[in-house]
């Protein structure tokens, strides 16, 4: 069976795009083939910096024939309908149609359209150019003389040659006949840009790959990676060193070379004074080189570079050049490091925090300074639930972002946090405070560890809550795949910080501590001064109850921190005036005076320039469900059953303590693994099914009245009633103490009575009173179990 070899040869493709591009190439071509009814045995795509290649194996020489029957109008239909049918079916006259009949429609015409399969080569001549034109590059461009027309081909970088051959192993393959923008497909490719630039004539994949290899091109990116990995390890090993593995860098470097040659360079030992992470970041980010460590685990004064050529001097020039660049970079890094240390040593009062006033965090959420002050205040409040030391937390919150001002972090943002820790340690701050500078960013992802030190935990919580509540208040929540502020990650972080450190606190409380600070900011000092009729705004209704202060001239004003605010009203800020919902729409805004004293309607202008913060109630309830969603995802990822989370969240309570929700889910999971659990669940399901059926007849809630002991005829009914009352009480007490195991034990005690009940009685008794009473027993069972979880949401 014939194979396809397809190569797109271009100027250098960005390393980060190569993998996706080779996958896209394979997907687009094979999908188009399958769509045309053509099957294939296998397909493999490859990428180098200068080419995308696709090998499709085992294609048929022709597309299969197709036969299609198309129903037409009834025999004897008007001429118009008949002509339309003939035209659509491609028939010359009705003689070419056959007549069929069925009982409903009677006799009607049927056209049989038989399409012979086309040669695969012809199909490819359509599919391949279409693939090129519609290729989904993240960024594409035009080039050359053809770009005078806006319809010219777009590619990631100029496309220079197309190779496309099709044929069986036993015969001379054919060139797929097509051209794109004047570039005709052929059987020519080119070797390595410098080592073997001549053109290469190719038949099929086998000789293509071999000839490329001979022309110093390793086609398969996986192989290039392996070559680099192995050569790097060997070179390191020979020096008694170990490569600091870096998969991301390896991927990138493998996408920058067609013929990887690993070389080792060195730098002066004096640079090793600089923290290893900074050296690594410097060498990695700027030079795309690997660093090495010695047997003692410390960074060595060597690096590995991956060149693209076998140089005629064995690489000496290349090494010397790279060493020079790295020396210059490390000199910069060392200079940054020394400068930073000096600043931290000298400015012990952290007066440089003031500079954060000029750094915008978010246009609507104020400066970095505002944010730090909010985090400080919130973190101190959180100490009550985390048990952290107030003074340490205050200091940690104050300086946790300070390393953003350092030269090193300015140059290498990826070492933010870590540098804070190092510099804070250098000036002898408390280890917990220093650690918090780094750990308050944690956890950065599901795989990252959660800080254990209460100081770190507290600041980490405050940092994330400020972000979440802030963006919620300005209504910039994540939507679909868009989450530019990584709010999902922040929420997951909050959950893990609470759960893994056993912090008991409700989300609603957390939000209510955070929310008012979001808009009480330094630049929003309430400047309401009640003087005369020119006042723009009245005091918002919801803080009428606070008393005014008086300035030196005796003017009445209100101070922001005095403000008590209503949790159900949105907050608006106009310039530095805090105004209420009612102000915005009240007559006071209808006519505002301009400086010349002319009455002008400025409502629209004011409404447009108002900054709106959603009310505490809205933010709290919305964030709580966001947390619940994140919790579900987290527990599911940890292997908990999805339905158990839903069952627990369906217990009719607020469930705003995420630690307790998690514990409850775990306890429920354990319970359901016991025989009592599965059996009770079965009994519950049976009860629920019966109730559902009977409620359809008698109406929703028909059996919610308490069961009457007097109507309990059978001993098993009495026993169940008694058990339900006991279990309900016991579970209530246990839940009150958040002792979920005890609550489950209380549930377990129901299993026997429920089973016995179903064994002994027929629920739908003849006597309507008895029936209603038995159904009331089942409804009680439903209510009692629901304290623990909504069992109806549990699968099985």
């Amino acid at each position: 069976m014939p194979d396809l070899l397809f190569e797109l040869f271009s100027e250098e493709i960005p390393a980060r795009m190569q993998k996706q591009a080779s996958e896209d190439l394979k997907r687009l071509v094979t999908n188009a083939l399958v769509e045309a009814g053509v099957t294939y045995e296998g397909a493999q795509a490859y990428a180098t910096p200068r080419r995308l290649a696709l090998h499709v194996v085992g294609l048929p020489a022709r597309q299969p024939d197709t036969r299609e029957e198309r129903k037409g109008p009834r025999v004897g239909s008007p001429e118009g309908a008949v002509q339309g049918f003939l035209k659509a079916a491609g028939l010359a006259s009705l003689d070419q149609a056959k007549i069929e009949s069925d009982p409903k429609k009677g006799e009607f015409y049927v056209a049989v359209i038989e399409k012979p399969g086309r040669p695969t080569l012809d199909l490819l001549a359509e599919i391949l150019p279409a693939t090129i034109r519609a290729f989904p590059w993240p960024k594409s461009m035009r080039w050359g003389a053809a770009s005078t027309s806006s319809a010219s081909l777009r590619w990631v970088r100029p496309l220079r040659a197309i190779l496309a051959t099709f044929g069986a192993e036993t015969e001379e393959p054919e060139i797929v006949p097509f051209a794109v923008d004047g570039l005709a497909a052929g059987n020519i490719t080119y070797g390595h840009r410098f080592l073997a630039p001549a053109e290469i004539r190719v038949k099929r994949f086998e000789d293509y790959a071999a000839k490329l290899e001979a022309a110093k091109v390793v086609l398969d990116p996986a192989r290039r990676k392996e070559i680099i990995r192995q050569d790097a390890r060997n070179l390191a090993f020979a020096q008694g060193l170990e490569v600091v593995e870096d998969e991301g860098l390896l991927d990138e470097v493998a996408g920058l070379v067609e013929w990887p040659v690993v070389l080792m360079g060195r730098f002066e030992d004096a640079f090793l004074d600089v923290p290893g992470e900074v050296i690594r970041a410097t060498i990695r980010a700027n030079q795309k080189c690997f660093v090495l460590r010695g047997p003692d685990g410390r960074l060595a004064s060597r690096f590995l570079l991956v060149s693209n050529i076998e140089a005629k001097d064995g690489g000496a020039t290349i090494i010397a050049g790279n060493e020079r660049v790295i020396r210059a970079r490390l000199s910069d890094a060392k200079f940054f490091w020394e400068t930073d240390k000096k600043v931290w040593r000298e400015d012990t009062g952290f007066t440089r925090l003031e500079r954060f006033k000029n750094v915008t965090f978010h246009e609507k959420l104020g400066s970095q300074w505002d944010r730090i002050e909010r985090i400080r205040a919130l973190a101190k409040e959180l100490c009550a639930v985390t048990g952290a030391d107030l003074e340490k937390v205050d200091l940690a919150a104050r300086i946790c972002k300070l390393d953003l001002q350092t030269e090193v972090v300015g140059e290498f943002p990826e070492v933010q946090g870590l540098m804070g820790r190092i510099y804070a340690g250098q000036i002898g701050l408390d280890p917990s405070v220093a650690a918090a500078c780094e750990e308050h960013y944690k956890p950065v992802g599901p795989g990252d560890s959660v800080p254990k030190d209460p100081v770190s935990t507290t600041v980490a919580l405050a940092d994330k809550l400020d972000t979440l509540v802030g963006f919620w208040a300005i209504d910039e929540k994540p939507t679909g795949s868009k989450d530019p502020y990584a709010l999902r990650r922040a929420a997951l972080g909050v959950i893990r910080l609470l759960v893994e450190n056993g912090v008991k606190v409700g989300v609603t409380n957390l939000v209510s501590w955070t929310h008012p600070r979001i808009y009480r900011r330094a630049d929003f000092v309430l400047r309401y001064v009640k003087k005369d009729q020119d006042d723009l705004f009245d005091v918002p209704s919801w803080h009428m109850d606070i008393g005014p202060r008086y300035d030196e001239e005796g003017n009445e004003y209100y101070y922001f921190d005095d403000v008590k605010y209503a949790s159900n009203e949105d907050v608006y800020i106009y310039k530095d005036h805090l105004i209420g919902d009612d102000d915005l729409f009240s007559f006071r805004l209808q006519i505002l005076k301009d400086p010349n004293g002319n009455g002008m309607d400025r409502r629209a202008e004011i409404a447009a320039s108002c900054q709106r913060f959603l009310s505490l109630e809205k933010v709290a309830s919305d964030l709580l469900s966001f947390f619940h969603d994140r919790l579900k995802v987290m527990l599911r990822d940890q292997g908990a059953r999805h339905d158990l989370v839903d069952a627990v969240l369906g217990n009719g309570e607020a469930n705003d303590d995420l630690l307790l929700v998690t514990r409850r889910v775990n306890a429920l999971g354990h319970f359901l693994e016991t025989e009592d659990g599965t059996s009770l669940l079965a009994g519950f399901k049976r009860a629920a099914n019966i109730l559902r059926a009977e409620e359809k007849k008698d109406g929703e809630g028909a059996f919610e009245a308490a069961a009457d002991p007097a109507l309990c005829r059978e001993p098993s009914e009495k026993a169940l009633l008694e058990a339900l009352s006991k279990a309900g009480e016991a579970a209530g007490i246990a839940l009150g103490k958040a002792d979920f195991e005890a609550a489950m034990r209380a549930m377990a005690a129901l299993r026997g009575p429920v089973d016995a009940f179903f064994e002994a009685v027929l629920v739908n008794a003849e006597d309507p009173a008895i029936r209603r009473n038995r159904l009331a027993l089942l409804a009680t069972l439903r209510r009692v179990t629901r304290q623990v979880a909504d069992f109806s949401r549990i699968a099985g």
Partner: protein
Amino acid sequence: MTALTHGPDALRPDRSFQGLILTLQRFWAEKGCVILQPYDMEVGAGTFHPATTLRALGPRPWNAAYVQPSRRPKDGRYGENPNRFQHYYQFQVILKPSPPNLQELYLESLYAIGIDPALHDLRFVEDDWESPTLGAWGLGWECWCDGMEVSQFTYFQQVAGQECAPVAGELTYGLERLAMYLQGVDNGFELNFNGLEGDAKVTYGDVFRQAEQEYSRHNFEYANTEKLFRNFAEAEAECRALLAAGEGGEGQRHRQVLPAYDQCIKASHAFNLLDARGVISVTERQSYILRVRELAKACGAAWVKTEAGGAA
């Protein structure tokens, strides 16, 4: 003046800064470029030269190369940093439409200045270029020689807010860095400028160190910010006025683009100085950049209504 006597070696690109420039000029002249002289105004990069910004627009072929002194007031380090200057040189090549062998031509030019691809590791590493002030962007690479960025290589897609049709290829060589590499010196001020040795040797520092010191003081301390704010506003107004005045020439041609564009350059430089003086806040910064961009875009739109811009 005594005639200097020196061998031909003094002008080798790896021996003198001026030799490097002369070699590149000769190379690109032989490839058919017009060799222009630097634009006589303060600009932040070679791209600002109208030979690039304006000539990149419109359908007419255009191949040019030139050295452009570039001023980045904020990069001043009082002559104390060996790698950073507030005034430095770029060598700029613009080829419209971009020829199919542009990468090969570029590599050939490296060979001409002594970088042999059999010895050096030359790489095209993704780096897309964008100039917010010029309303311009393109795709391309930074070109690496043994791990050092020596040039920027860009296929212009849009300049001054106008789509490039056809696309021009732009090469920018950072001359000081390239010369440091070729001469094997780690300090830019130690570059040999004239290729001579002993008493006759003139270094880059001899030529520019004092200027770096004085201009750093100027850029960060002494530049009169009130005057600069005024200059910005005046240049902006003048640019708009000239563009308005030049409208509607014979056949709807525009007759005042180049003078107007000069004012756009002036505004941009005033902004750069104000930025260095630290008197522009983060938010204002964006709006100043936007204002310069609007000028550049207006100039671009006018340029395509001129003869050189390809107007019918």
